[in-house]
């Protein structure tokens, strides 16, 4: 591997040449996120170029092995790449549940065939993945699932439904937790299977949230065909894979507690919007809550970095992801509450010019789901109590 110092020099030069200028500005709206996939429409030629260039280097998934299209970088080189991207304010070229969730699970549990088949298209942003975990009425009790996988000799068929599929209407493939043995005890008899969402018998219906948006769907399976080689890990051993995948999801969600890159610190926003009086925020009672949030957010960032360093040194993330999930989502909710308070009456506007078409209140409402999705806060606290603290 290139020496770190050389890697930095070369990487910097490459980024300078290959990152379009427009891709070096902070994200303005959710529409600026590049999710890739068959149905994705690029917002601009620059957005597409940036994805292509990065995918070619394998830097959309820089830590994955080169044989599956990844960048093959170790922790030290990864950090350098992050720093250099941060230096020029480069946007992430691709947001992807393929990279953050199913990819790591395939790398750890998938057959060689599955890796070869799925990882390279993920790296290239060609296939967008949807998550099929929750079911209606199951809620936090994830393992009580009912979607049924039946063996039909040379293939399986799937019946049932899932709920809370993020952007299910835009997904190409789904990784889906199903019951493959209804006789087995609750946590046995579960499998993680993959299938194309264009398969006949798979359909979706959007769920409208209190924010007025529909980032989730329900997904229905009516005798949908699943190929036999699309089981991740062993049949009926999917709960293990699912739990591993959940730790990645939790850590990812926990990141919502950090200040979004490119966004002004809360205190500065408050000073700008509310004004100062003798150097202090004109709203003195708000100051303390803002300071506490900023400190906690900084502390979470330091803690996630520390955990990454420890993982690098051989520790397992495991239940710690529950700590990040819990704290990160609490912080994002507090942050959204404070943004509402900072913007005052303008924050109520559902459509007017002051609030950029209600972006602020919609983000505030959306954040309430943070402590529910990906395992409720209560579930995370249970996990911490049992698996970290060892309480009975």
């Amino acid at each position: 591997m290139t020496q770190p110092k050389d890697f930095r020099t070369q990487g910097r030069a490459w980024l300078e040449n290959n990152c379009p200028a427009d891709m070096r500005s902070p994200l303005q709206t959710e529409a600026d996120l590049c999710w890739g996939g068959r149905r994705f429409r690029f917002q601009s030629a620059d957005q597409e170029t940036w994805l292509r260039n990065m995918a070619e280097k394998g830097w959309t998934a820089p830590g994955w092995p080169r044989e599956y299209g990844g960048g093959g970088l170790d922790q030290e080189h990864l950090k350098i790449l992050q720093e250099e991207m941060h230096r020029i304010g480069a946007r992430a070229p691709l947001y992807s549940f393929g990279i953050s969730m199913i990819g790591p699970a395939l790398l750890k549990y998938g057959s060689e065939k599955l890796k070869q088949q799925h990882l390279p298209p993920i790296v290239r942003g060609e296939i967008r993945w949807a998550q099929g975990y929750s079911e209606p009425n199951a809620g936090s009790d994830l393992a009580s699932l009912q979607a049924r996988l039946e063996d039909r000799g040379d293939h399986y068929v799937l019946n049932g439904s899932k709920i809370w599929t993020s952007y299910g209407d835009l997904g190409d493939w789904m990784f889906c937790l199903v019951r493959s043995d209804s006789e087995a005890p609750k946590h046995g008899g579960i499998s993680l299977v993959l299938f194309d969402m264009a398969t006949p018998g798979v359909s979706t219906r959007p769920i409208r949230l209190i924010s007025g948006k529909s980032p989730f769907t329900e997904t229905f399976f009516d005798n949908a065909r699943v190929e036999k080689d699309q089981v991740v890990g062993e049949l009926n051993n999917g709960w293990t894979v699912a739990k591993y995948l959940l730790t990645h999801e939790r850590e990812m969600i926990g990141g919502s507690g950090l200040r979004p890159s490119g966004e002004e610190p809360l205190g500065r926003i408050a000073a700008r919007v509310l004004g100062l009086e003798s150097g202090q925020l004109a709203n003195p009672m708000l100051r303390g809550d803002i300071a506490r949030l900023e400190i906690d957010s900084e502390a979470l960032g330091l803690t996630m970095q520390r955990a990454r360093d420890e993982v690098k040194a051989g520790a397992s993330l495991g239940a710690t992801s529950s700590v990040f999930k819990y704290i990160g989502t609490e912080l994002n909710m507090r942050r959204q509450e404070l943004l509402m308070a900072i913007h005052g009456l303008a924050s109520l506007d559902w459509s007017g010019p002051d609030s950029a078409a209600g972006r602020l209140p919609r983000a505030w409402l959306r954040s309430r789901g943070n402590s529910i999705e990906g395992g409720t806060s209560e579930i995370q606290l249970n996990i911490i109590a049992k698996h970290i603290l060892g309480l009975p």
Partner: protein
Amino acid sequence: MLQQSARDFLNRQAPVKHLRSLRDAGGSKGFSREVWAEMSALGWPAMAIPEEYDGLGFGFTGMGIVLQETGRTLTPCPLLSSAMMAAAAIVHAGDDAQKSTLLPGIASGEALVTLAFDEHTHHRPGQVAATAKRTAGGFCISGHKRFVLDGAMSDQLIVSARTDDRVPDGRGISLFIVPATASGITITPCQVLDTHVLADITLDDVRLPAAALLGAENEGLAILEYALDAGRIGQSAELLGVALEAFERSIAYLKERKQFGVPIGSFQALQHRAAVLFGELELCKSLVLNALHRLDSDANEIAATASMTKAKVVETASKATAEAIQWHGGIGMTDDFDIGFFYKRARILETMLGDRYFHLDRFARQHGY
């Protein structure tokens, strides 16, 4: 009795699905004239208006009880803007002619009057840039008022404007009664979070007779603050209703919804959070009752009471409605389910007329620290 009859009426004629249907119909009305006519027939807008002006003379306590019930059903109506705040200003400071002209209409519900005072994105009633200049026949007002509650549906506006630049902040402000149809007025409705409608109002050389002045010239801020405090107490009553309803619905859900084979209400962590919240709501009930009584008995001392009450009720209602979503889980996040409307309504009520930070600060200042 009043509480039960109000509750029965609202559950029958204007439950949460009434709000939902108003929203889904779109438009810029914000409330239903039909429902308002029925409320008026029940005498609700007349409650705090003296009998000599066709009111019932019951005072604000009864109004608070009704507002608490409209909070439970999230029913939008101009009770707070017209029958509580505007009425309070007119009863408190109006001359006989103004009272005779305006109060009977407010009492019957046929006339709507609202206060137009905020000019910033934050509630700062003392910061007034709108001006009222003396003319031969009276005054000429220009300015820009924002976030006016029921501003697009009201017949008369009570507008704050600066009549004297030379006196320091807090004085030099006067109130004027302005017909919404007066020449020079432009009203732009703006829909907020949960379908309530606020208005942006510009006044461009609006000419008024001398008789439009409400209360003494340059002394309008004190009148305004009194009316706002009445409004803050009314809001607190409404918020209490919002919080209680969200809490009770959630407790019922905790008993009914099962997970891991048991009702989720059997989990002790949720039980304790529910118990703590119950205690906070008990405190809020006492604060609201106390504030309404004070408003009826001791009108000159209500500023600290209003801020104390609103600060506490807002924090509790915000907590109660957020917990309500959390306890409902995923379904609580969906638009199909009603609980999210409580969270939205609590936010609107918090933000208008001063949020928790505004009132904590005001409470501390009023107590000399």
